[in-house]
């Protein structure tokens, strides 16, 4: 297990592995996103109260779920970077931040668009929405903090601490609708007990959540590959790769 762990610290090995993963994961993700969107938008019944406007759930919920999960990926990468001083963990942490920020932004915007016809307002400062806005600032904060340092090792240390402190926000977001009186409704998908969303709507939603996880993985690997090449541009293996690319 430790040899595998050490292999992840090797840039050329990670670059090649991510290349072979992306080769099949990228087309699968694209097909799943398109298929899931068609399934959710065209082949499910409208909701008994909201009509067709509920269909934004197929973007809103997956984006929000993966934005929360992505934060844990970033924080764990930050912890690995702090403990083992692994450059690849720094890169993974830095690569998570813009993707997470984008997903959080999508969740906030789609929620706002849904809120207008459903609640009657674009925005309300309730616990769920405010804590989600804090998540967006945490992601953007990691990006800004990382770019503020000349020294990349120092930048990674600062970002790792920020992302670890920020983990407290994730359970707060998740439980905010149960702990406090909020306008946002409680979760419809439940891990224990029956979900309060009809199975005909639940399956395309779960499918879209899986597709968004794949999308996150693809974006993470692509971001990391760019960063690896940039950092390693003076090494022999990157030069050999560039020469091969130029010749081919």
């Amino acid at each position, binding site marked *: 297990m430790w040899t595998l762990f050490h292999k992840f610290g090797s840039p050329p090995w990670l670059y090649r592995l991510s290349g072979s993963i992306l080769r099949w994961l990228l087309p699968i993700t694209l097909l799943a996103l398109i298929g899931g969107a068609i399934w959710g938008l065209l082949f*499910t*019944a*409208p*909701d*008994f*109260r*909201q009509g067709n406007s*509920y269909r934004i*759930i197929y973007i809103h919920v997956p984006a929000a779920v993966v934005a929360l999960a992505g934060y844990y990926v970033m924080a764990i990468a930050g*912890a690995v970077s*702090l*403990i*083992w001083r692994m450059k690849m963990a720094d890169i993974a942490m830095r690569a998570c931040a813009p993707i997470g920020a984008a997903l959080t932004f999508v969740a906030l915007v789609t929620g706002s668009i849904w809120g207008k*016809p*459903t*609640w*009657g*307002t674009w925005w*309300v*400062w*309730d*616990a769920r929405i405010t804590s989600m806005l804090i998540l967006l600032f945490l992601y953007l904060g990691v990006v800004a903090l990382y770019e503020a340092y000349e020294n990349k090792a120092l930048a990674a240390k600062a970002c790792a*601490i920020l992302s*670890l*402190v920020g*983990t*407290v*926000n994730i359970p*707060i977001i998740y439980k905010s609708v149960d*702990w*406090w*009186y*909020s*306008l946002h*409704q*409680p*979760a*419809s998908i439940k891990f224990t007990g029956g979900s*309060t*969303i*009809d199975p*005909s*709507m639940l399956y395309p939603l779960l499918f879209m959540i899986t597709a968004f996880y794949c999308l996150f993985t693809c974006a993470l690997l692509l971001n990391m590959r760019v960063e690896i090449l940039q950092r390693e541009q003076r090494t022999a293996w990157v030069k050999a790769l560039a020469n091969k690319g130029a010749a081919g």
Partner: protein
Amino acid sequence: MHPVRKQRLWLVLFLVVFSSSAIGLMAYALRGNINLFYPPVEVAAGLAPVGQNIRVGGMVVEGSVQRSDSSLEVRFEVTDYEAVVPVVYTGILPDLFDEGQGAVAAGKLDENGVLQASEVLAKHDENYMPPEVAEALEASKSRMAEQSGEQGYGQ
């Protein structure tokens, strides 16, 4: 594991636990401010300030919505099944506002305990289903109500 790394691991764990409990305690201390609205039972107990902007949320009581013939004024009551707060509002209600559904009204409580609302929001619940399923559910519910009525458990 290398002792230095082990020490860093403890440091990371301490950082997460310490900051989480600090923020957790802060959120607990501020819980009254984090709540978006007062439930009617707190309004009835006098916990909501009179004459200040507050929000009251709950279920709209069935049969309580009265619309004025000459203006956009609407009167209704919200309840949490323990207490009831009457609300007066002038304006257009959200499409999903309905009797027996959740709503949040923002405004000022007057001396009579009536909320003079300046904004009414519909609160959607976590139930999602196609119309046919909703109809089937409604039908089975009324069938069950009939049966329990026959057995003498009804109202």
